[in-house]
């Protein structure tokens, strides 16, 4: 009966469904966009890592700075497996990831970027100086050098490479700008940061041009014989650049496997310190990345680590502050959508009240042939529910489509800025809630008309017949 009633008053039903659908569209789109924006903003704050991440430095802590997001570290202090185990055992610590940094000498290929790829990308900045570097070691004297106009090939330079557990790289503050991360445990693959691009005179938009090129990384070692001048030798390896990343794990322009930095570091540590003139790292780990079980627990974990004597940093205050603002934005946007839905529900109530007035005869007939009050009530509630459900489904689909459209426009803008775009996941909970909420609100809106219909005296209804 509810279905036939909807069909009979098709125009009104369509308008009512349209009102609900528009409201659900607005609500879904706003909540989805707000949720995605929240994820993006927080992801930017945490640099792609978890919000509850804490960086532990191989340095002594200053207890007075534990509430500071980025405190000044104290004097160096070794981080070894024993302390890693103790931190892992702390309450509210989910996992601990080791970070090993090693200083290397870098020899960049000539040219430092793939000319074919570069030709397909946006032009180089006009301010970049033309290629001026000297021929690389081993190059045939007098042979023509492959150069790319506007591209800078620097002389060999010292830089830090950061070794991480690549199996769990997704837990670290690393964002892939182009390409991919090195394969776990690889000794021949490397990812570079934006700093490397800048050094080559490239911009973020041209990141793809360095992927596939090779760099030579040499771990230095000092040999000191009594009475002889210091001698330097490097342990070289050739690595292919497989990706460009933004990373906040530790300072350094090269991201490699943990094993690669451990080998380099062991080589360097095996040498002389030149009679105290050179600083040889003694700490097995240059840092640890600790993930607390929850953002709320970050401060407690930081305090525990500080008590162990190590300096920590985490953007907890910044994240908490931004989260508060984002929550306000979400509430406001959600409220706008909810108000629209309530207005649509009033439309349902109005349409059903009109239907009750028009259908007095029908209600009377139903009662005369034996319908109970709740049977009549059910017919109107079912009608309201169907209107809400259909409107909710259409609106939710429309809202998600709108959010997809908005994210496409946003991604176009972000891509033009050389930034990583937003990824709009399927917010299943939001979609289900929108459909369920639309139906529920419609049922609530239909409650009064349904009650009025069910309470209509059968005799009055018969008189209308």
């Amino acid at each position, binding site marked *: *009966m509810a279905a*036939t009633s909807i069909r009979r008053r098709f125009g009104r039903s369509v308008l009512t469904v349209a009102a609900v659908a528009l409201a659900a569209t607005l609500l879904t789109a706003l909540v989805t966009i707000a949720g995605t924006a929240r994820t993006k903003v927080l992801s930017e704050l945490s640099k792609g890592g978890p919000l509850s991440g804490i960086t532990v430095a191989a340095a002594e802590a200053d207890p007075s700075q534990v509430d500071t997001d980025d405190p000044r570290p104290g004097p160096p202090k070794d981080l070894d497996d024993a302390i890693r185990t103790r931190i892992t055992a702390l309450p509210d610590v989910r996992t601990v990831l080791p970070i090993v940094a090693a200083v290397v000498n870098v020899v960049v290929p000539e040219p430092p970027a793939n000319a074919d790829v570069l030709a397909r990308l946006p032009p180089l900045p006009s301010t970049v100086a033309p290629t001026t570097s000297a021929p690389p070691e081993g190059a045939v004297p007098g042979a023509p050098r492959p150069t790319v106009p506007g591209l800078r090939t620097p002389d060999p330079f010292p830089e830090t490479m950061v070794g991480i557990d690549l199996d769990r790289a997704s837990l670290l503050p690393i964002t892939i700008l182009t390409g991919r991360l090195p394969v776990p445990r690889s000794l021949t693959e490397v990812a570079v940061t934006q700093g490397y691009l800048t050094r080559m005179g490239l911009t973020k938009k041209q990141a793809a041009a360095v992927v596939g090129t090779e760099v030579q990384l040499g771990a230095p070692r000092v040999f000191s014989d009594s009475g002889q001048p210091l001698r330097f030798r490097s342990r070289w390896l050739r690595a292919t650049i497989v990706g460009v990343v933004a990373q906040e794990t530790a300072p350094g322009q090269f991201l490699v496997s943990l094993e690669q930095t451990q080998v380099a570091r062991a080589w360097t540590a095996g040498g002389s310190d030149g009679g105290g003139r050179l600083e040889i790292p003694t700490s097995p780990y240059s840092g640890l990345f600790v993930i607390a079980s929850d953002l709320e627990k970050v401060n407690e974990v930081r305090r525990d680590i500080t008590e162990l004597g190590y300096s920590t940093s985490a953007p907890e205050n910044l994240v908490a502050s931004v989260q508060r603002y984002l929550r306000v934005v979400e509430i406001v946007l959600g409220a706008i959508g909810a108000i629209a839905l309530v207005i649509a529900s009033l439309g349902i109530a109005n349409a059903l009240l009109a239907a009750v007035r028009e259908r007095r005869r029908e209600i009377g*007939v139903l009662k005369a*042939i034996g319908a109970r009050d709740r049977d009549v009530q059910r017919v109107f509630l079912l009608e309201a529910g169907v209107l809400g459900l259909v409107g909710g489904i259409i609106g939710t689909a429309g809202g998600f489509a709108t959010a997809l459209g908005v994210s496409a426009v946003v991604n176009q803008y972000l891509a033009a800025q050389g930034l990583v775009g937003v990824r709009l996941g399927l917010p299943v909970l939001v979609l289900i809630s929108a459909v369920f909420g639309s139906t529920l609100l419609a049922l609530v809106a239909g409650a009064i008309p349904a009650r009025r219909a069910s309470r209509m*005296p059968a005799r009055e209804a*018969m008189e209308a*017949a």
Partner: protein
Amino acid sequence: MGVAITLRGLSHTYRTSEGPLTVLGGLDLDVADGGYAAITGPSGAGKTTLLSLLGGLEQPQSGRIEIGGHDLNGLSGDGLAAYRRATVGFVFQHFGLLETLTAAQNIELAGTLNGTSPAARRSRAIELLDAVGLAPRAGHRPSGLSGGERQRVAIARALVNRPRLLLADEPTGNLDDDAAAMVIDLLEKVRADHGCTLVMVTHNRELATRADQRIPLDRVLPVSTPA
């Protein structure tokens, strides 16, 4: 099988803008089991009120109503609905068919409320449409039927739950003479075949004379006796 009707001291008061209006005036009435009664009288005499009270469409305010030995005064809400579903069949002047349903669906509707299975409902609807000579029109909506056909569908619907009391409110009021005669013949045949008690409101004196018992409401009837 029908029901015997016993009314004692029945009256009903309406609140109107001019003050309380009392109808029926303490009506006493007896209709025999399987009887055929015609209620006549001018507008406002309480004919439809009496039919509503007999049909359990509203609760009696004053007096006693006994239908088939059951006291209606003690029923309300779901109890009255169950009484209407199981005991009463209504035929309205305006047919009371739902325009969005077909003839068969209108008949099935009464079975739906009674909890009958879909197959049984469908079968019963076809059987009743056949009985009123409208089986070929089962799929037609009321708007596609003539007045007489609509009333025959309404009679078929009234019979779906095998009522023991058939109440007809001016069933020929909207029909031409031929259709009216056909409908009255059908109602009388139904009563004869099913043995149900038939109470009909009519303005038509000629039709009223066909009933076993006439109940004129334009004057006080202390106790009505069969004609």
